C-alpha cells in the first residue's frame, strides 16, 4: 500500500497552530505517511512541531465559511488545534490523519522506517530474557531449569521460547499442564528471592470448568515449586465469586482439595474495559476546566483510577509480604494471566529487589515481565482516553503500572534509580513510538514480522549515555532494603506529571526537578574536586 493514496493534500500554508504552553503560531503544515509536521515561518522564530500520526487518538473537525479547524487529541493527552484555510484542504488533512493514524498493518508502522544516524540495526536488541536471567541467577541452578519446550511457540503462543520451571518437571509434563491452563500459560518462574530462596510464579487460570476437572501434572508442577516447604500461596487477582463464575466458562481456580499445600487468596483487581473507562473518565475530568472543587473531587472519585492504583499497590504489597516476610513461594494469576498478574508481580519485584530499581534493571524487568511475558501491547494500547471508536481490547494496564511506580518513587525518592521523566517517556512510547519495542502482542508476533531485525530497540536507545543521564534519578542511593509503600489514600496522589502534563503548573515542577539535577551535579563536582 502506498501512503500517498491517503494524502490528497500534503502541504498547507498559513495554518495556525494552537498548542498548550505556547502562543499560537502561523506556518506551514505538512502531512507525510507517518507524521504531521508544522513549521513556523514567522520571523525570528523557527519552531518545528513533529507529531507522530500514531500518537493521535481522535480528531474533531469544524468548518466555518471557507476555513476549518481541526482539534487533535493525542494519546499522550496533549490537545492541539489547527486552523486551516480552505475547507477542502481541511477535510483532506483530517481524512489523512484519520486513516494514517490507525493503520492496522504492523510492518507499515513508523518503527520500520525510523533510521536514526546514531543507531544501527545490528545493535543488540533488548536487555534481558529468561535465558540471561537464568544464567545470572546461579542460585536457581539446583532446583530449576531452563526449558525450551516452547521454542517454536507451539505450547504457549504468548510465552517466549525459553522459560524457567522446576527441575523435576519434564517437557512432556509441561505440555500437559499447558493444555490445562488458559492460552497454554502454564506456571513459570518470574522471580527468585535471593534472601530466602522463595519464588514468584505466574500463569493463567486452570481450566477446571464446571465439572472440576483435575490435572495431575499441574498439581505435580505446583508441588515441585514448594518442594520441601510446607505451603505456598496463590494470589488470584479476581474475587472468589468471579473465580467461581469463571468455571461456567471453562476456567476456574485451584481447589483446596486438589492443591492442599496451597492457600488461595483472592484480591479483586479491575481489568479490561473497566480500567479503560476509568482512564477515560479521569482524563475527561482533568480536561474540564469548568469543574468546581466538589465536582472535580466527585469525578476523581467516580473515575476510580486512584482506587485501582491503591488496589494494585496493596495487592503487590501482599504478594511481597508473602515472599519476603512470610517466607513462602507464590503463584499469581487472574484469568488470562497477561494483565493484572504482570502488574502485581512487577510491582512486588520493585518492592523487594534492589536490582530492579536501577534504570537498567527496571527496563530489563519490563522486558521480561511485560514484553516477553506476552502482555498484548498492540491490543491494549491501540487507543487511549480520547478515542471515539468502539473499544475492543484496549486497557491501560501498563499505564496503571507506571502510575503505581510513580507512587513508589514519590514515597521512596532515593530508592529508585530512574526519574519521573522515564515513566512519562514510557507512557508516551507505549502508545506511539519511533521504536519497535512495544509493537505486537507477543514475542511470537514480533518474530514473525521481524521487529528485532527491522526496528530499533527503545530500551537500548534509552541507555545511550546522554539519555541515560537524563532518565537517571540524581538522588539515587541504592538500598538493599525492601521498600514498602504506604497505601493509605492520604499517601497516594493523582499523578499530576502525567494527567496534567500540559499545564503551566507542571512546568514549574519540572523546572524544579531540573534544578535538583543541576544542583546535585554541581555538588558532585565539588565533592570530586
Amino acid at each position, binding site marked *: 500500500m502506498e501512503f500517498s493514496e491517503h494524502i490528497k493534500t500534503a502541504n498547507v500554508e498559513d495554518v495556525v497552530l494552537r498548542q498548550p504552553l505556547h502562543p499560537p503560531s502561523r506556518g506551514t503544515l505538512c502531512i507525510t505517511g507517518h507524521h504531521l509536521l508544522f513549521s513556523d515561518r514567522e520571523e525570528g522564530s523557527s519552531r518545528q512541531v513533529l507529531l507522530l500520526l500514531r500518537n493521535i487518538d481522535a480528531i474533531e473537525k469544524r468548518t466555518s465559511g471557507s476555513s476549518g479547524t481541526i482539534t487533535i487529541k493525542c494519546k499522550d493527552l496533549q490537545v492541539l488545534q489547527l486552523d486551516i484555510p480552505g475547507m477542502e484542504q481541511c477535510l483532506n488533512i483530517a481524512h489523512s490523519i484519520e486513516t494514517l493514524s490507525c493503520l492496522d498493518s504492523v510492518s507499515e508502522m513508523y518503527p520500520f522506517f525510523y533510521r536514526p544516524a546514531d543507531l544501527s540495526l545490528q545493535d543488540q536488541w533488548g536487555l534481558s530474557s529468561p535465558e540471561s536471567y537464568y544464567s545470572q541467577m546461579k542460585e536457581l541452578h539446583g532446583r530449576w531449569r531452563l526449558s525450551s519446550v516452547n521454542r517454536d511457540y507451539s505450547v504457549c503462543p504468548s510465552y517466549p521460547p525459553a522459560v524457567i520451571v522446576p527441575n523435576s518437571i519434564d517437557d512432556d509434563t509441561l505440555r500437559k499442564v499447558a493444555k490445562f491452563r488458559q492460552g497454554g500459560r502454564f506456571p513459570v518462574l518470574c522471580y527468585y528471592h535471593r534472601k530466602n530462596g522463595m519464588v514468584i510464579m505466574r500463569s493463567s487460570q486452570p481450566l477446571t470448568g464446571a465439572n472440576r476437572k483435575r490435572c495431575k501434572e499441574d498439581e505435580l508442577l505446583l508441588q515441585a515449586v514448594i518442594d520441601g516447604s510446607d505451603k505456598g500461596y496463590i494470589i488470584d487477582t479476581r474475587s472468589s465469586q468471579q473465580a467461581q463464575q469463571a468455571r461456567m466458562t471453562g476456567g476456574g481456580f485451584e481447589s483446596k482439595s486438589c492443591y492442599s499445600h496451597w492457600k488461595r487468596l483472592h484480591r479483586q483487581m479491575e481489568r479490561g474495559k473497566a480500567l479503560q473507562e476509568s482512564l477515560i473518565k479521569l482524563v475527561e475530568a482533568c480536561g474540564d476546566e469548568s469543574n*468546581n472543587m466538589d465536582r472535580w473531587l466527585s469525578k476523581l472519585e467516580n473515575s476510580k483510577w486512584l482506587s485501582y492504583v491503591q488496589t494494585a499497590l496493596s495487592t503487590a*504489597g501482599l504478594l511481597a509480604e*508473602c515472599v519476603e516476610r512470610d517466607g513462602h513461594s507464590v503463584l499469581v494469576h487472574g484469568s488470562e494471566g497477561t494483565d493484572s498478574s504482570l502488574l502485581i508481580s512487577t510491582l512486588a519485584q520493585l518492592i523487594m529487589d534492589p536490582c530492579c530499581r536501577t534504570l537498567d534493571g527496571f527496563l530489563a524487568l519490563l522486558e521480561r515481565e511485560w514484553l516477553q511475558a506476552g502482555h498484548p501491547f498492540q491490543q491494549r494500547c491501540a487507543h487511549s482516553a480520547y478515542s471515539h471508536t468502539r473499544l475492543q481490547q484496549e486497557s491501560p494496564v501498563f499505564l496503571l503500572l507506571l502510575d503505581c511506580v510513580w507512587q513508589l518513587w514519590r514515597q521512596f525518592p532515593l530508592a529508585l534509580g530512574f526519574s519521573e521523566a522515564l515513566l512519562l517517556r514510557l507512557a508516551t512510547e507505549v502508545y506511539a513510538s519511533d521504536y519497535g519495542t512495544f509493537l505486537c502482542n507477543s514475542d511470537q508476533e514480533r518474530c514473525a514480522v521481524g521487529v528485532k531485525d527491522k526496528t530499533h530497540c527503545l530500551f537500548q536507545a534509552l541507555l545511550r549515555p546522554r539519555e541515560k543521564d537524563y532518565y537517571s534519578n540524581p538522588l539515587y542511593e541504592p538500598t538493599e532494603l*525492601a521498600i514498602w509503600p504506604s*497505601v493509605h*489514600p492520604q499517601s497516594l496522589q493523582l499523578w499530576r506529571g502525567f494527567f496534567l502534563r500540559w499545564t503551566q*503548573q507542571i512546568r514549574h515542577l519540572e523546572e524544579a526537578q531540573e534544578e*535538583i539535577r543541576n544542583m546535585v551535579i554541581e*555538588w558532585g563536582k565539588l*565533592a570530586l574536586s
Partner: protein
Amino acid sequence: MCLQVEQVRLLDRFSSKSTNGTLYLTATHLIFLQKETFILHHHIASVEKLSLTTTGCPLVIQCRNFRMVQFVVQRERDCHDIYSSLLRLLRPGGYEDLYAFSYNPKQNDQQREEGWQLIDLGAEFERMGVPCDQWQLTDVNRDYKVCETYPRDLYVPITASKPIIVGSSKFRSKGRFPVLTYFYQEKKAAVCRCSQPLSGFSARCLEDESLLQAISKANHNSRFVYVMDTRPKLNALANRAAGKGYENEDNYSNIRFQFVGIENIHVMRASLQKLLEVIGSRPLSMSDYLVGLESSGWLRHIKAVVDAAIFLTKAVTVEGVSVLVHCSDGWDRTAQVCSLGSLLMDPYYRTIKGFMVLIEKDWISFGHKFADRCDQLDGDPKEVSPIFTQFLECVWQLTEQFPQAFEFSEWFLLQIHEHVHSCQYGNFLGNNQRQREELQLRERTHSLWAFLMSEKQNYLNPFYSPAYSEAHPVLEPSTLPYHFKFWRNMYHQFDRSMHPRQSILKTILTLRENSRKAESTLQALETVKVQRHEEDDEQEEVGEEAMESTDTERTVEGSSGTDSRKQSYGELEGTYNSDVAKEEPAVVSLEFGVARMTC
C-alpha cells in the same frame, strides 16, 4: 505536680500496632516514654475517656496540631487520675498560666529584647514606600481610643482628617475604619482593610464616604476603588437586619462593589471538623476518602480564599486600582485575603523574614483574635475557628505550585502552626495589641520570630531562586480544582506510617550542607597551598586537619522546634526491624498500608 503511670499502651490509629511505656504528667507536658512522645498541654484540644475494655481503660487525646493519640491504661483508677488531672491542666485560669510565662530558653533580658525587635512594622511600611505624598501615619489611635483592636500606628490618606476618621470609625463594626495595609508602589495602588459598615437598610455616613473618597483620590491611576466584601452575599444581606451590612454603591462615589463568597468562621470550623472525622478514625478506602474530602468542603474553602486573593492581586497589579477589603469584623477573612494577596504581589513576603513580617502585620497587629480562634483560654467554643490554619494551607498550596518562589519550606509553615497553638512564645497570645501590651508580653515572654530565625537553616527551601522571583514578582496561581491537594503533612503530621520514608527536601539540604563544607574545605586547602608555597614544612598535617573538619556532618531535621515533632518525619533510621516477625502469616492481618523499609 507530676503524675506517673506505668504499663500504659499507646495505640497506632492506622495499624494494629501498639507500644508499652510509662506515662508522665508534668506541669506543662504529657510525656510517654518508650516512644519519646511529648505533648504540650496547650496542644491538647480534647480528652475523652472511653468505656473500660478487657485490656484496660482507653483514653483518647486530640491535639490542635492534629496529633491524635490513644492510650490504654491498665487500671481504671489510674486512667481516671490522668483524665481528671488533664482536665484541670487544660483549663488555664488566665493568660498568666500559659506556658509562655514560664518558658525560659536561657536568654538574658537583652537577648529577649533583641528578639522582640526583630520585626519592625514601621520599617516595613517604609519599605513599601509609606509615608509618602499620599499616605501618612496617623496618631489618632495612639491610645487605642478610636479602635481598641487596631494597632497604635495606622496609615491613612493624607487628605483624611481626624474628624473624618473618627466619624468613619463610628460607622464601622468595632470601630475598625479603613486603613492601609499594603502599598503597591509600582502603581501607587493601596490595599486597605476595615470592618463592615453599620449601614443597615439605609443608614449612611458622610465621613465614611469621604474616607473612601480619600482612598480613591490617593491613587491617580484609577478613578475608582474596589470594595471587596469577602462574605457570601447572603450573609451580608442578613447582616443588614442587624444594622450592619455593606456599602451602597449609590452613596459612595467611585466605588465598585464586589462579593467574593468566603464562608464564615462557623462554616470553616465545621468543615475542618468534618475533614478530621473522615481522615482521623480508621484506615480508609480511596472512595471513602475522596467522598469525605469532597463533603467536608475544606478544599473548596481553601480555593475560595485563594480566588479572593487573586482577585485582589489582579485589581492592584494589573488594573492599578486600590482595593478596600472587609468582611464582618475585618479580622478573619479580611486578614486571610489581604495577607495572601500581598504574598502574591510582593516577593519579599515569600522570604522567611518577610513572611514573619506579613503575619505580624496582617494577623497579629491588626487584631486577628488568636486567643479566641485558637482557644488559648478555654473560652467560647463558638469563637474557635481554623482561620489561620487555613491561611497557612493556602500558602502551602502556593508553594506546591511555585516550588522556586518561596525561601521557606513546608516545615516553616508547620512550625509556625505548632507555635500558634503551643502558647510557648508571646507573639500570638491575646486577641489584639492592646491586650498584649497590658500583659507585658515583651517583658515577660520570648518572641517566636527570634527562635525561628535562629533555626533558619532548617526551614530553607533548597529550590528557592531569587532570580525566579525577580522574573515573576507577581505570582499567578491557577485555582483549577485539580491543583489543590490534601495537605497530608499538616493533618497527618504525626502519623508517620503515612509519610514518604525518604525526603527529597532533607536529602537536598544535607547534600547542600556537605557541599558547602567541601567548598570551605577546598578554600581552606587553597589557603594551605598558598601557605605551602611560603613555608614548605608541615603541609601534610595542616591539610589533613582541614579535611577532618568535614566529618562532623550536621543532621538536618525537618523541624527541631519541639521534641515532640522530631520523630514524626520519615527518617530511615529506626524503622528497620521495628516490626517483630509475626507468627501468623502476614497475609491475614496484612498490615500493609504502612510505608516502611525493611531488611
